[in-house]
């Protein structure tokens, strides 16, 4: 059950790039799951009519003038939410893998605890979820890498089904990892002594479109994210030494 919502309380952002096949259904499901909560689809310069489908489904659309990538789109949504004065933002991907029925639980966890970020994790209840072998290896690798940095275990560091509060919004609207944001964002928050928690959620197969992740991109992903994590740790240490 969705708790009572105040004006400018919760905003749902849906980053989407060429997701015309799925974004309409995602918006409908979100509106069913949290009636009355505004939904903004961030269209990362799609060429397949994503904006039109999203508007017809009842969402507002923030259209980017050129393709920025996932992090750039999500950050645009965070900036908009911060400027409009929202207290909480939950990100739901436009490909339909996130089940919007879990939104109220993420919102509740954000609202009733002192967490700056709540991650919807597909592995908390079922470690052998329907994920690809490559992704599974990546997730396990980053669990090991992140454990000492974050100071606590994280089961699903690559999940994009996340909610943030206004403190995290402020940080992310100023600085947000642009290419593969999920893991680096965790480190960014942890370096500021912010708290995060995971709650179990359901993940589904994509409703449409196809994943852009290939074997070569997976290797690049791991190297890129490792470097990003390392740089974020260094940034923090330098700032601490200057104090």
């Amino acid at each position, binding site marked *: 059950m969705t708790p009572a919502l105040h004006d400018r309380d919760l905003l749902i952002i849906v980053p989407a790039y060429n997701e015309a096949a799925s974004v309409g259904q995602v918006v409908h499901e979100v509106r069913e799951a949290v009636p009355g909560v505004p939904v*903004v689809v*961030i269209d990362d310069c799609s060429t397949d009519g994503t904006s039109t489908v999203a508007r017809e489904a009842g969402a*507002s*659309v*923030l*259209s*980017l*003038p*050129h393709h*920025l990538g996932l992090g*750039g789109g999500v*950050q*645009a949504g965070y*900036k*908009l939410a911060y*400027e409009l004065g929202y207290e909480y933002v939950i990100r739901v991907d436009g490909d339909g893998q996130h089940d919007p029925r879990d939104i109220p639980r993420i919102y509740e966890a954000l609202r009733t605890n002192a967490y700056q970020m709540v991650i919807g994790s597909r592995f908390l209840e079922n470690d052998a979820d329907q994920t690809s072998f490559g992704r599974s290896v990546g997730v396990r690798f980053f669990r090991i890498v992140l454990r000492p940095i974050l100071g606590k275990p994280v089961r699903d560091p690559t999940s994009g089904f996340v909610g943030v509060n206004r403190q995290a919004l402020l940080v992310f609207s100023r600085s947000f990892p*642009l290419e593969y944001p999920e893991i680096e964002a965790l480190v960014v928050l942890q370096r500021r002594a912010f708290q995060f928690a995971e709650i179990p959620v359901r993940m589904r197969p994509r409703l449409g479109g196809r994943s852009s992740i290939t074997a070569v991109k997976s290797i690049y992903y791991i190297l890129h994210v490792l470097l990003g994590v390392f740089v974020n740790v260094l940034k923090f240490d330098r700032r601490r030494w200057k104090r």
Partner: protein
Amino acid sequence: MDRLLNFMTLLSVALIVLVLRSVRRAHIRVEYSVSWLGAAVTLLVLSRSNWALDSIARLLGIADPPLALLLVVGCIFLIVLYRFSTVISDLKDANISLAQRVGILEYHLRNLHENQENPKPR
């Protein structure tokens, strides 16, 4: 050795001419031409001054001065490339920020238009 040094002289003169022409035609901004001109003039000086080249070779512990020249050339262009990498990164950040701002402003504008066309009842 002379042939290599002459080639380097020609290369550096060609680079200076090319950069100056590009600046004149506004293909390169003046501030970004400085790196290229600095690199080209350094090459020109080293390729024409045996004393300078020998000194650098001795300093680096290289017996063959042309080899020292190639090493210096490599280092200079690495520095120029590094400088342009930082410039490109700054430009990309600014570009992303601008694109986000344009998107957000368009979002506000569209909402304003919609509110004007369908005012909410008070």
